């Protein structure tokens, strides 16, 4: 609901006469992006919270990062992942507060192990050691 309210304010703001004397400050720089600025969140996902503790024995949950806003970079025909990362890096250099560091390099994740039941009540202990995320995003 907070987002909704802010969006309402922005709409009001756009109907307000622009104050020409005031240059765009950091807060305004992406004012049109405020509501969709790319942001990274941290969240603890609890399997108990998901009601899955009857089949996931361990771990109890895991620490996750996720992004929301304009994080999935619009890669169109003349923009590939690499030079888009270059553009983002330039934007980041000019205005570090507003844009998270772009990353298009494959990112190796920590090794995790999961212990869970299958449908036949057999138990599976699986190690995930070589998890690599290959995507452009705010990471």
């Amino acid at each position: 609901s907070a987002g909704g309210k802010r969006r309402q304010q922005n709409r009001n703001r756009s109907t307000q006469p622009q104050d020409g004397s005031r240059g765009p400050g950091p807060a305004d720089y992406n004012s049109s992006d405020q509501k969709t600025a790319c942001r990274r969140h941290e969240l603890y996902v609890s399997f108990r919270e998901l009601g899955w503790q009857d089949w996931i024995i361990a771990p109890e949950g895991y620490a996750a990062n996720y992004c929301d806003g304009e994080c999935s970079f619009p890669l169109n025909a003349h923009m590939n992942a690499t030079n888009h990362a270059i553009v983002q890096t330039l934007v980041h250099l000019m205005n570090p507060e507003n844009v998270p560091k772009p990353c298009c390099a494959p990112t190796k994740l920590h090794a995790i192990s999961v212990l869970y039941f299958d449908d036949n009540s057999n138990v599976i202990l699986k190690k995930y050691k070589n998890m690599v995320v290959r995507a452009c995003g705010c990471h």
Partner: protein
Amino acid sequence: GNNDAQPGFIHRRLRTHEKREMQKEILSILGLPHRPRPHLSHGKYNSAPLFMLDLYNTISSEERSRVEGALERYQSMRTTRSPPLATNQETAFLNDADMVMSFVNLVEYDRELSPQRRHHKEFKFNLSQIPEGEAVTAAEFRLYKECVSRAFRNDTFLLRVYQVVKEHPDREADLFLLESRRLWAAEEGWLEFDITATSNLWVMSPAHNLGLQVSVETSSGQSISSKEAGLVGRDGALEKQPFMVAFFKVSEVHIRTAR
């Protein structure tokens, strides 16, 4: 992410669409088509999950010990835990494995075998759920033996584990002796039997998976039932149920596309 809650990571109730997204994400990482529905008796873990949890804690504490030196603490904790505990050999298998699976014994009730084999006990495991491309690097059949009653107290038993090679409708099944072991009647604890070759055969040719049979004799050659020998079966304590465990190695690295 890693196995522990990072201090500072928010614990908050997930919104419905976040829950759905997380569930899809987790199932796709685990390579599962849907959420499993295991049959837990009274919500308690029996021997296999307890054993696997011990292996899981071994992995997690080794990872953490690399960072915090917690292994000693964990080792001391293990000595106070109840069975089943992984042996050093199983911990070595664990280090090499990418996946470990325990399998529930499918034989619900003992069947009356032929008069000659009346005291043979059967065990069957369903290995059909193993993902493609996994090779068994080690497999064990685990059986818990309790101290026996006074009648055999000073005796020794000869315990034999067979692989059932072929079944016949009108005569005894063909058996292949995997191992014979002499035990003290008063001995108590987990017995591990190496069934790596047998498991590999069962994985490669499920039609040959006809299970195992166990027989016990006293030192005078008298055949006795597994119950008399103190072997715990399906009617015994949950945490002492017989089970099989197999260690696997996968070859290819899975690359997941971003969602």
